[in-house]
């Protein structure tokens, strides 16, 4: 088992089984509500998939640059000029709930609730 040197042993992460707590933490980070049965299934399936990544950790990639683009390309700049876009009403037409030019969502603040990452 090798680790990507200097990165706090993160290379070990794929080798061990995921715990239920880790799965629950990831679901919170992913903003994904999962039912208990889904969490249970995910724990096993993700562990099984992650074992496939073991092969990557064993490859010596020292000095190999990470790919940024498969095909050589320069990211372009364009002039900072406003261009025509969708009319506001058209752009908002698909919103599940709106009030005129505003999209309405539930409150973002719930007393007593701790946000993920807070």
């Amino acid at each position, binding site marked *: 088992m090798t680790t990507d040197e200097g990165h*706090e042993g*993160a290379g070990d992460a794929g080798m061990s089984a995921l715990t239920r707590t*880790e*799965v629950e933490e990831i679901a919170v980070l992913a903003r994904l509500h999962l039912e208990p049965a889904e969490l249970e299934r995910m724990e096993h399936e993700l562990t099984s998939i*992650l074992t496939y990544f073991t092969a*990557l*950790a064993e490859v010596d990639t020292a000095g190999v640059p990470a790919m940024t683009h498969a095909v050589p390309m320069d990211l372009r700049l364009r002039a900072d000029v406003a261009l025509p876009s969708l009319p506001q009403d058209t752009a908002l037409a*698909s919103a*599940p709930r709106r009030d005129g030019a505003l999209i309405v969502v*539930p409150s973002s603040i719930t007393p007593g609730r701790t946000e993920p990452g807070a």
Partner: protein
Amino acid sequence: MTSEYWSVADTARRIAAGETTALAVTEATLARIAIVDGTLGAYLALDGDGARAQAAEIDRLRASNAALPPLAGVPIALKDVLVTRGLATTAGSKILEGWIPPYDAHVVERLRAAGAVVIGKVNCDEFAMGSSTENSAYKPTRNPWNLTRVPGGSSGGSSAAVAAGLCAASLGTDTGGSIRQPAAFCGVVGLKPTYGRVSRWGVVAFASSLDQVGPLTRNVGDAALVLQAIAGFDPRDSTSLDAPVPAFADALTGDVAGLRIGLPQEFFEAMDEDVRVAVSSAVAALVERGAVTVDLSLPHTKLALPAYYLVAPAEASSNLARFDGVRYGQRAAATDLADMYARTRGAGFGPEVKRRIMLGTYALRAGHYDAFYKKAQQIRTLIKRDFDKAFRYCDVILTPTTPTVAFPFGAKANPVDMYLADVFTLSCNLAGLPGLSVPCGLSGDGLPIGAQLLGKPLDEATLLRAGGVIEGAVGLGERRPTGLATLVPSPRPARITKPGHAAPGGDL
């Protein structure tokens, strides 16, 4: 009139010559869909009125003796990850149920400008994640060659519709093989262009560094024609390549004398015997016409699968963050905003999409990035270097498209087993190369087999040239899917002939 198996080229030619009208072709296509698609399940949405209006416009143009655009009147189906103005787009997901996009994807604009008639949207795995179309939230699509088998995926609606004569051509998207694998399973041609050759503007994003749009057609010449219509620079896609677009149809010369065909040993280690025999016949056909084979090694091939299943889910977990119930799509009831995001996504996404979002979130998590995403991107560099080296010794690489023929529904219950269905197609995407799947025979039980050609960046022309030769020698000719025989008696005699070289304009 039996226009269902007319090629793209022949349909356009007949309409331009006045032998038929665009409206008649459109009506015939819609009529066949009405008979067949209840069983096949290729289409998610039909745009009958829009298609008739487009067709009528083509017929008016012709009546006024105006020059017709190249695909005038050709019925086309679009994978449901391509957004279409005024026409429901779901990406095969419940989370987008009922969404009517306010604009057309770049490729849809280009097809409409080329005169193609958009018949409707076709089924796919949810957000293009899958290899069988079983992950569609809406319905299964069946393989026209055998209704108990999957059509492949994720562009399974696209491949089934083309194979069954429910359109002349379709567009799919290919992130890890999602055009080529279903094309192989359904006995049609599938072309994944070079990354950046076709604009991704208006494509529901899955993995942005891998996704490409491309055609599925019934012959190689048609793939050239459709690619011609959709390829080229688009400033709205920051990864669109500003490179010259050659006349692809001109590539179909039939001349492969001296062409160096690379055969990478890693792609010939494990496959069904029928696949091995058929792919060998494709190689032999090229050699018979003067091509030479070069034995190669692409030593990092075995790493493509794990690298892909880190890169693609990582990018997906980021791309799919936009589906949160705020601006479009479905929204779940909740008491606060964070709960609304989580419940909307929990209710709206299916099991495979959730799995990949979780996997991607895990891989990108603080402390994991270097070990997973960065590591996978370094492996991509190694895979790309393998190809760069290989192309110093060959002009095109030939492999099987898939290790097996189309499998039965439910056969791949384990996610990793399903991922292995793409084992031969993934490295092409990781390296950004163009890839073509062309039919090269049938298995003993009558299911299609595809040969995959991989080319140098922007060298789709050589793939088309070699593919045309394979098609002419060992393609399926006029053999049509057998699974639909009981639904629609064939209006044509069941001749089994091999077409000559598929010149542009040739009809299979």
